[in-house]
């Protein structure tokens, strides 16, 4: 430490060589917790130093490097090169189970497509939240189908190729029917009398499902 003080005092009379000044600017910019002005640099460097010139040398030295000397207002700082920003992100993938509402909405769309929001709500017996539909759209498991040619021309939803890929289905018609669900023990209760017949038991189902493959 005393040596350093000597060094400073010595240099009261003679500024260190520019290469040395550049090193100093580099170290100060590196270690500072905020951008540093030229005046601050000079206040910390040995007397007679020319921080502005040292900065220009340093700036040139870092051209094209992974780190740049950048101007922040009236001050200077070192920053990683913008094109390497992708290195500063660390992606962690977290797997979460889809909510029950989302699963049911998805199932209704898959079995009844094209399905309007009103139809989904009617089948589920509760309203479908915007978030649920948005989530499924965002996951690219459903997409908008053609509008219904009914009053209000409501949008319809259909499942996507991505959905089929995820569930290992050739097409949505491969979804197991209620009979299979029952034999798989998934259906313990019989459907209520008066509830809609299963899509695959009805003729219009075929036209519905075809919509998926039209565009």
């Amino acid at each position, binding site marked *: 430490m005393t040596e350093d003080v000597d060094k400073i005092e010595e240099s009261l009379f003679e500024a260190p060589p520019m290469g040395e000044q550049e090193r100093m600017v580099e170290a100060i910019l590196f270690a500072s*917790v905020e951008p540093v002005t030229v005046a601050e640099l000079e206040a910390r460097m040995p007397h007679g130093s020319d921080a502005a010139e040292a900065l220009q040398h340093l700036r040139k030295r870092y051209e094209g490097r992974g780190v740049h000397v950048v101007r922040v207002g009236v001050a200077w700082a070192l920053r990683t090169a913008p094109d390497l920003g992708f290195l500063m992100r660390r992606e962690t*993938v977290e797997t979460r189970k889809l909510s*029950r509402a989302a699963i049911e909405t998805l199932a209704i769309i898959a079995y009844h497509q094209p399905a309007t929001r009103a139809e989904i709500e009617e089948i589920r017996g509760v309203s479908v939240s915007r978030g649920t539909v948005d989530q499924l759209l965002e996951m690219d498991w459903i997409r908008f189908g053609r509008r219904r040619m009914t009053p209000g021309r409501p949008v319809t939803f259909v499942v996507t190729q991505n959905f089929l890929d995820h569930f290992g289905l050739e097409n949505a018609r491969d979804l197991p029917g209620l009979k299979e669900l029952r034999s798989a023990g998934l259906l313990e*209760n019989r459907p209520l009398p008066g509830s809609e017949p299963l899509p695959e038991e009805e003729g219009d189902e075929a036209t519905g499902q075809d919509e998926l493959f039209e565009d």
Partner: protein
Amino acid sequence: MSEGDFEEDETSVSERLAAEALIVDVDGFEGPLDLLLMLSRTQKVDLRKISVLELARQYLAFVEKARVLRIELAADYLVMAAWLAFLKSRLLLPPDPSEDGPSGEELAAHLAFQLERLQAMREAAARLMARDQLGRDFFARGIPEDVARVRKIRYSATLLDLMQGYARIRTRDDFRPFVMDRDAVLTLEQALERMRGLIGFAGSWTDISSYLPEEFTHDPARWRSATASTFAASLELVKEGKVDIRQGEAFAPIELRRRD
């Protein structure tokens, strides 16, 4: 402790002052080994050439002085004093061939080793602390650019989830209004009406469970309700003289037959 007195007389004024400072500073010592190391410096020789006998004398004199000044010494200082007294006797008396164990010289050598090792560690610690240190002599980046942790949430669902979800909706168990729950109940009237229509076919003994409505046999709640009301309806029909009823033994099937 005449030896201690003798030694005190022999010591110079400065050494006596040093010894007294030791006493006053007794709390400043990090244990008896530290004190021994301090005392060993008065010999002004390499630790490898130290006179352990002399050191033992100094230590015992110190402990004696502390006793005179009524300074409470921690137990480990006294344990060390006892050990040194033992060592001293070993070193001074001719070896007793009948006695087992290490010789005085071996014990003394070990003590010297311990002192040397402690001294070496002290010096190593000092050299370590004299090194350039992070945050004092050299520095890390002042404005770290933290790695943004992008948390990507991947939602998962299996085909089974999808099927179960759909099955759940189709059965509407969860969404049926409360009043609809009466559908799980087969009333006596309903059972009776049903039985009246079917009883004509019961020419031979038939288990009453076969009269349960088919759609009521899968759900335990409905099954119970239907069984109870069908049984009650059967008794009503027996009362009316329309059927006979029997049960072989407890828990055996209850059977009906049309009365001709």
